[in-house]
């Protein structure tokens, strides 16, 4: 499984669904139980940064992984 470019800080996350709602690549799914986003399709993320920039709590960590170095 590919390393994810984005990672959610579940402590900061408030479950607003902005990232899940906006992701152009549909990389996220929603965990209804935890009320948190899940990076379900990490290998499809090309790192546009929309989720990172739109998150109201800046709860998304964006890191360039080795495969994309």
């Amino acid at each position, binding site marked *: 499984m590919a390393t994810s470019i984005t990672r959610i800080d579940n402590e900061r996350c408030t479950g607003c669904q902005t990232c899940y709602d906006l992701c152009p*690549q549909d990389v996220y799914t929603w965990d209804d139980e935890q009320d948190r986003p899940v990076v379900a399709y990490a290998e499809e993320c090309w790192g546009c940064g929309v989720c990172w920039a739109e998150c109201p709590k800046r709860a998304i960590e964006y890191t360039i992984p080795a495969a*994309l170095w």
Partner: protein
Amino acid sequence: MMAAQEMKDKLVDTDVLVVGGGIAGCPTAYKAAEKGLRVTLIEKSKTERSGHAGAGIDTLLGWPLLDVPLPKQVKNWEGRVEWINGKGRFCDANIPYTIYKGAYWALEEAEKMGLDMTWHNGQIHWNRNRFWEDQERQMCVHWMDVKPQMARAVHKKGVEVLDRVMLVDLLTNKGRVVGATAVNTRTGQFLVIKAKAVVVASGPLARSYDPEQPLFYKYKMKYHGAPGAIAGDGLAAGYRAGAELANMDVGNCWGFRLRDEITVPYGQMVHRDGISGRWRTWDGMMIPFLTAPLYTKLERMGRDPIYVDTIHFPEDYQARCEVALADERLVSLMACAQRGFDPHTHRWELMVNMPHNFTTICGLVIDETFQTTLKGLFAVGDAASGLASCGPGIQSAFLCADGLPAAVSEASEPVLDEGQVESQKKSAFAPLAVKDGTEPMEFECAVRWINSRYVGEFKSEGKIREGLKRLDSLKRRFLPELMATNPHYLMRCLEARNLLELTELHLRGCLERKESRGNYMRTDYPETDPARDDMVTYQSVKSGQPILEIRKPPALKPEYAEEAN
């Protein structure tokens, strides 16, 4: 969640269906609704942040000079296409004419839509581009939020916006488009859309080559020209329905692999208010604008890799680049640091300048009313042959939509062929029933690899034929086995199918272009064939048979050629 196959189809009845909610699709939908038409927009992603301009845009091309006659401007435009594609005409000259003629009207329409066309000082700011300043104007914009703004305007106008809905196929009856089928990429619900006009605004062909495909004029650290969602959906569906495509041999086939490098675009860094980034060989020799033949030459001399840098930019211009970065893709401001990039001392490597990085001239053939060769089907933005980039995307959108009321009133009540609907649904959902099949991304990567290996930079008959053979074999063996475990993967399966078809057209087109011209290079035909000057590849399917024609694109109409500005 209910299984997709058990859900009731969503039936939509509308006047205009716009496929794609990007920077061309949104103004199209907006204007059509403003004209009193019922409009439905389907967008594979989410309209607020979809398409090329999803994270923003900072420069709009396509604005004519005020004191130059339109026919001359058309010649300038053709000259810029030639610079990449080599000598000759590749598109219908009446299209840039129409765009240029209507550009400033479109600007007013954009303002009315609520977009801010002005700069920080409340005035329009034209980018000083000394390479192009006698050819065309480039407008600087601060459009980090253009997509949310467009989405808001579109919703407010009463457009029925269906996000997370991907086009499956077009519906036709008696030789005209009567609607489309689509699928919700999250719920899997099937949609049957009746429409009197369909406008394809789904962007260019992309993702058909291996990645590491930099956009020619731009800088960077491994940039991808098109955002990941763009995969030529509308082109493939249009072709299947009977519309003609042009320039699939030399058109834009940006490589893009979803599992790939971070792109850190640098906006219009390379032409920033009169100066540009500098291209250099590894050992520091400055070179002029790069072309594929020049890159090849330098490579043979051992002077690659080629780099571009802005080391010479004064601080004021470095700051302009930062603003451009923020306007086009905010994350790159942050991500550059992770790569250790300092524009004062570092250079970006220009990845191998693959010659298939053309000027987005491939796409659906349109006339100056943006109508394709299939009645009732229109195309705007990068999806249309002869249109490229966001400025013409917006301009074509308003111009096309302005003419839609006439097209809609002429159209009779759409009657759907239920058999066609059922067949499209069955074909679209097939991957959901496959167990232990092939994942769509694996299939897509196989297609890209065939393209890169057997077409690639240096083409030849033997390689292309081998590529076609492999593609056919891949199709027969694995296309029926594409597997989707959920609606998201169903979307990828549909894309994989589209990419296979468009790649096949690309290879067939390349086979027939027995020459070298501009960035198109054939080792078995290293010379330019004068017989192919102005001769464009057109492809369509008639009665199930693929047709390839080589003919001249329409020249500027005599009445336009004579017209003073």
